[in-house]
C-alpha cells in the first residue's frame, strides 16, 4: 500500500525530531519505523539518544491504526529508556491523545519550537526523509 505519510528525521544532541506529514494510518508503519531507526543510527551515540520528538504539525489525519503505530513507537522507546514527546497536534488529536491516555506517557507541546527548546539543544544535522 502506498503511504501518504512522510517523515523527516533531524538529530540533535541527545534527541531526535521526527517530523511527520500527511496521514498517520496503517500505511505509515514502515515510514515511522524507518524514521525511528534513522534517529537511532544517526545519533553519534545511540545510547545517548534520550528523547524522541514526534512532530505532527503537518499531519492532517490519524486513525486508530495510526494510534497503534504511535503506541508501538512509545513501547519501543520506553524499552530503550527513551522519552517521547509530541508537538503540533490539533485540538482534536490532542483530545484523542487524552482519551487513549497517550498524553499520560507523551508530553504534548503546542509546537516544535517549544518542544525543542525544552530540550535545551540546537539542531546539528539533517537526515533524509522517507515516504
Amino acid at each position, binding site marked *: 500500500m502506498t503511504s501518504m505519510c512522510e517523515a523527516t528525521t533531524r538529530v540533535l544532541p541527545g534527541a531526535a525530531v521526527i517530523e511527520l506529514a500527511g496521514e498517520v494510518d496503517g500505511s505509515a508503519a514502515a515510514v515511522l519505523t524507518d524514521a525511528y531507526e534513522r534517529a537511532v543510527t544517526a545519533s553519534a551515540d545511540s545510547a545517548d539518544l534520550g528523547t524522541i520528538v514526534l512532530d505532527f504539525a503537518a499531519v492532517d489525519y490519524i486513525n486508530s491504526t495510526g494510534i497503534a503505530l504511535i503506541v508501538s513507537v*512509545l513501547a519501543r522507546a520506553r524499552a530503550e529508556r527513551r522519552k517521547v514527546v509530541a508537538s503540533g497536534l490539533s485540538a482534536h488529536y490532542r483530545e484523542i491523545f487524552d482519551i487513549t491516555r497517550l498524553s499520560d506517557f507523551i508530553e504534548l507541546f503546542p509546537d516544535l519550537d517549544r518542544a525543542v527548546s525544552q530540550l535545551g539543544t540546537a539542531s546539528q544535522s539533517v537526515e533524509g526523509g522517507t515516504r
Partner: protein
Amino acid sequence: MTQVARPTPERLDAFTLPSQPGNERLALARVAGTVQGRGLSDARLERLKTAVAEATMNAIEHGNGNRVEIPVEVEVTRSGNDITVSISDQGGEAHPVDGDHEEPDLVKKLDGDQSPRGWGLFLIRNMVDAMDITTDGQRHTIWLTMRTTGAAHDEHV
C-alpha cells in the same frame, strides 16, 4: 400517558462505497460536507468525522472483508436535534467488531500484554453522543448520533 410526537427522520444523504481500504476517507469527507452548517461545532464535527472514518474502516475490513464488490452503505439523517449516520455492511451476526473485546488499556499495550491495535470501537464510542449496533440477517449497521444542541459531551476542546 402523554404521547411525545417524534419527528420523522429527514434523509440528508445516502451513498455507497466499494469495500476498498482507504475509502473511509471518502465517507468522512462526504458526511462532513453534508452535515457542515447544521449545528455542529467544529470540534464536534471533527469527532463525527473520526467516528465515521473508523466505522467505515471496520465495515470495509471486518464486515465486508475488503471485497470491493460488496458495498458499504452510508446514510445521513436528521431527526429533531439529532444527526445520525448509519454505516451498513454484510458482516451479519458474527461481525468481528461486535465480539467481547477487551477494553483497550494503554499500560497493558505498552507492557506487551495487549496488542497495540484495537482502538477503533473505543474511539467511536468516545467520539459520538450515542452509538448503536443492529443486525438484520447479514446486514450489520452501526448508528452514530450527534446532538446539535444541548449535547452531553464537551465543548471542552
